[in-house]
């Protein structure tokens, strides 16, 4: 069944090709007389793009495919470690595809009516969506480094087109920040991959991990890879693209961006860092990763609460959650013996956050254009993933108790306290996001079985039940004992109380000053941009100085040249003088010679 393994990443490409060909055919057929073609790009075939991957994830048994002639030797495989990642990724992509059909309904209508801009945008979306998906699936399945890098790059670059979908200044800024940071990340990843693969001539990811563990400069290689993948995984300082790109991207794209694509960074860490290898000696780096992760978790919570756009709040929440995830990955380096037990909770956390964040992003669109359902049903369903993300309910609660179970007895039990405090921040963020959604709610306008509400409902249910369906192999997930519940939900309670207090203060003080300090989305981005501006100005000055110095040098050279020419002119002048004397001179010399001869 390794054919299925090959089909999973190839099918989206075929879907893209199909859409492109149909488009080309329709365009070549449409003459001015027959009018514009009525072409449905987001059809059933388009929606089916992640289906083979979903089927593959549910396929029993491990699969491997090796291809001699593929680049430098391709190895794709599906093992116990990859299966959960593939499953939740494929599922979220499927739901997001359905959601997109509804989300873009207006644009589709305008495109059918023949509006150029809408047609252009829709075409780009219909082609780049499956391409991004193909890259994402390939990076999950690839075991050889070139395929992995291919998947990562394809996903990163194709997603740029999704981010700038809306057009306009803000979308351009979001897309620009996304692309610049992504390229910096690609550069770091390339360096890390080449250096570590070169040190052991490794071609596979497992070989790469061994190489880093054994190499003398393993610390530097691992640092490059940490920071490179950290751009995707929102390491604090490199996270600035998230809050800029998420609000401007179409909601289904934000959902997969935050739900699955940023997880590719985490998966990159798991695939390349020698986690759980005692001899690696990367404990100091582990400490840094954990520290940076926690710092990100808190900073993002503070910054996120100051945002007004619900999608920006959710983006900061992603940074915060990814920080928590990163702190656990760091433990895998600083205390390698713990990693085998920690992998399962990390995977569960990733799957839970992916699905839940997807559901939350879907919810933003749903609260703007709610289905015709009673409010008492919609709002609790919107709040369910929020509470789950803060760890008080459903999959979030289970994920947290699982982590607690593993870390409790270890030397890293202190981390649990910090994670709980970070969860208070998460709760505040969720409250903020829901509050902004409530303030911006719209009138019920569509049936509950329309694509958007349907995808949202499915995502909410699937997200709540992640521990039930995410496969973990032999060892099951431990369910929390009723006695531990208070220890698990207190951060959410504290967060809710704080949120209530803040709201009360804001209501009481409204009219006198703004309820929350406004902080531009993208925080450090503006600092980076200013620094880049200064650097560019400095360089321009330096260049101008060099140029003026060069001009001075050139001027001096020209002057010297002139002087030489003047001198030559002088010579010519003198020579001209000679002409007058030439005949007498020659005659004189001859006479002298003759005289000499005669006398001699």
């Amino acid at each position, binding site marked *: 069944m390794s054919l299925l393994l090959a089909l999973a990443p190839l099918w989206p490409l075929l879907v893209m090709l199909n859409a492109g060909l149909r488009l*080309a055919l329709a365009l070549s057929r449409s003459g001015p007389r027959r009018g514009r073609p009525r072409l449905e790009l987001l059809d059933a075939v388009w929606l089916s793009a992640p289906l083979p991957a979903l089927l593959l994830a549910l396929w029993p048994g491990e699969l491997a495919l090796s*291809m*001699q*002639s*593929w*680049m*430098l*030797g391709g190895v794709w495989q599906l093992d116990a470690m990859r299966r959960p990642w593939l499953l939740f990724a494929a599922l979220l992509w499927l739901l997001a595809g359905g959601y997109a059909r509804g989300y873009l309904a207006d644009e589709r209508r305008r495109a059918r009516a023949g509006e150029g*801009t809408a047609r*252009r945008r829709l075409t*780009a979306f219909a082609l780049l969506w499956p391409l991004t998906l193909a890259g994402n699936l390939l990076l999950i399945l690839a075991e050889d480094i*070139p*395929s992995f*890098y*291919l998947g990562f*790059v394809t996903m990163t*670059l194709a997603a740029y*087109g999704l981010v*700038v979908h809306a057009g306009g200044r803000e979308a351009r800024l979001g897309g620009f920040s996304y*692309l610049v940071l992504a*390229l*910096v990340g*690609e*550069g*770091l990843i*390339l*360096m890390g*991959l*080449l*250096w570590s*693969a*070169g*040190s052991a*001539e490794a071609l596979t990811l497992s070989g790469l991990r061994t190489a880093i563990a054994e190499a003398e*400069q393993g610390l530097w290689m691992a640092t490059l890879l940490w920071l490179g993948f950290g751009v995707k995984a929102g390491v604090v300082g490199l996270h600035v693209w998230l809050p800029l790109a998420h609000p401007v991207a179409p909601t289904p794209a934000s959902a997969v961006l935050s739900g699955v694509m940023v997880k590719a960074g985490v998966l990159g860490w798991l695939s390349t860092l020698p986690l759980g290898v005692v001899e690696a000696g990367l404990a100091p780096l582990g400490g840094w990763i954990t520290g940076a992760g926690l710092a990100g978790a808190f900073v993002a919570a503070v910054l996120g609460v100051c945002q007004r756009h619900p999608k920006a709040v959710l983006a900061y929440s992603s940074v915060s959650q990814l920080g928590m995830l990163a702190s656990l990955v760091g433990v895998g380096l600083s205390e390698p013996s713990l990693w085998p037990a920690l992998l399962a909770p990390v995977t569960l956390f990733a799957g839970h956050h992916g699905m839940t964040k997807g559901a939350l992003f879907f919810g933003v669109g749903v609260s703007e254009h709610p289905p015709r359902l009673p409010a008492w049903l919609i709002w609790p369903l919107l709040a369910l993933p929020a509470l789950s993300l803060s760890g008080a309910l459903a999959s979030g609660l289970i994920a947290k108790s699982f982590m607690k179970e593993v870390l409790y007895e270890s030397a890293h039990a202190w981390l649990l306290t910090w994670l709980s405090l970070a969860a208070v921040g998460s709760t505040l963020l969720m409250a903020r996001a829901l509050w902004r959604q409530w303030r911006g709610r719209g009138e019920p306008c569509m049936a509950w079985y329309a694509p958007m509400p349907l995808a949202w409902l499915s995502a909410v249910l699937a997200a709540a039940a992640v521990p039930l369906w995410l496969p973990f192999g032999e060892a099951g997930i431990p369910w929390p004992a009723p006695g531990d519940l208070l220890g698990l939900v207190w951060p959410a309670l504290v967060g809710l109380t704080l949120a209530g207090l803040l709201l009360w203060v804001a209501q009481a003080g409204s009219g006198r000053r703004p309820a929350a300090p406004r902080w531009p989305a993208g925080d450090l981005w503006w600092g980076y941009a200013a620094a880049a501006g200064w650097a560019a100005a400095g360089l321009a000055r330096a260049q101008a100085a060099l140029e003026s110095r060069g001009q001075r040098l050139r001027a001096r050279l020209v002057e010297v040249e002139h002087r030489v020419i003047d001198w030559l002119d002088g010579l010519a002048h003198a020579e001209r003088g000679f002409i007058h004397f030439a005949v007498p001179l020659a005659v004189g010399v001859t006479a002298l010679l003759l005289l000499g001869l005669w006398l001699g």
Partner: protein
Amino acid sequence: MSQGWLPVFTLATSLLVAPLILLLPERAGRARAVVNLAAAVLKLLLVALLVLGFYQGRDYTFGFTVVEGVSFLLQVDALGLMFAGLSSLLWLATTVYAIGYLEDSPNRKRFFGFFSLCVASTVGIALAGNLFTFLLFYELLTLSTYPLVVHRGHDKALAAGKVYLRYTLTGGLVLLLGVVALHALVGDVAFGQRERLADLGPEAHPMLSVLFLVLLLGLGVKAALVPLHGWLPRAMVAPAPVSALLHAVAVVKAGAFGIVRLVYDVYGISLVHELGLLTLLSVVATVTILYGSVKALSQQELKPRLAYSTVSQVSYIVLGISLFGPFGTIAGLVHLMHQGLMKVTLFYCAGNYAEELGIHRIEDLDGAGRRMPLTSMAFTVGALGMIGLPPIAGFITKWYLGMGAVQAGMPWVIGVIATSSLLNAAYFLPILHRLWFRQGRGRWPEERRLGRYETSAWLLLPTAATALFSILVGLLAGVPFSPLDLATFMATKEYLP
């Protein structure tokens, strides 16, 4: 003896076509096209025959003595075959392209005549068996490309041609000096007889170092190593097919090929390593790579940007050579092929934009992706390949360069590779953004409808074909007879102990 005639025939196909074309009247466009294409196809077949025979272990050597101690020698080895294969493949593609490009323009007879001579010289360079023969064709290349560079005949072209001649003839003179001096030292050395120089012993090392530098200086002009690159951006005034061929296989590549020959077949990599000249080579390559990329960033027109990109990319070959070890060698050799395919694609695309829409400046490319989707897709492939993204050819080069850098104990080179990739991205991605994501202004500088499709099929076909090849040699690099396979064969069987 009959075996020895095969390389001569290969050389003769394009060498004899030149006078034939010059004899045909200017009006006989169709006959000229037929002769050109037939010769190109014939040569491709002959090269294929050579490759086949070479793999069966046949020896193709042709030679005669010119004067005592100096002989004309054609021989076939893997490196030469690779270069001959590249040049005959791209000759075919470029001939098709040029027929479409120069339709209805004056002086086509002169153009195609010298075009054939130029290709004959590249094949001669590829099959040359010693430095004398190499030098002969190297100079012939200089002279036969001059009429192509100044083809348009306006003042700017003539000025560029003057600069071109000044640079290349001086380079040729320096090269001649080096060749003569080396001849005085060891006599006539065929390529591959590396032990002759190595046997001279350590007391000859200072002299050998000086001669290496002299030869490098001579070859470096055509290979456009900074600071000897000045002619290349100016030569951009040439018609697009000429630029394409100049950058991909003829002049610049001949210089790089010469450096490969010098390092591997004249001196031998071990001797160069012993002389301590590889570090110098890698520093020169690094400076050239970074300088070319930075200069490319500041160009506002498409062809000059591509020209500076060539300056940078060709030095990848030199960088690969300078990394002592099999991986570095593979990277250098394989890029000889890869850069040719990708760069020729980019220049075809630039020509297509200029011919169909009159676009020369980058800012006019807004929205051209919708008007010319196939050309723009080909450009995208070429550009992403230049950045070094998988699965396109450039990635394979970068991968082996990185491996080679670690193997040679110079991990700092990886930093150079990454920086250069980022700079490449910085000057290519804005173009791609303009092509695909910007909205066109509704009218083009000078639109001509050249064909039923987005442009004339003569222009479109070679573009699509070379783009496809650029992907295939990367995607299927593991297939036998792929450039990577050939380079690996050469690096492990011939050049390294």
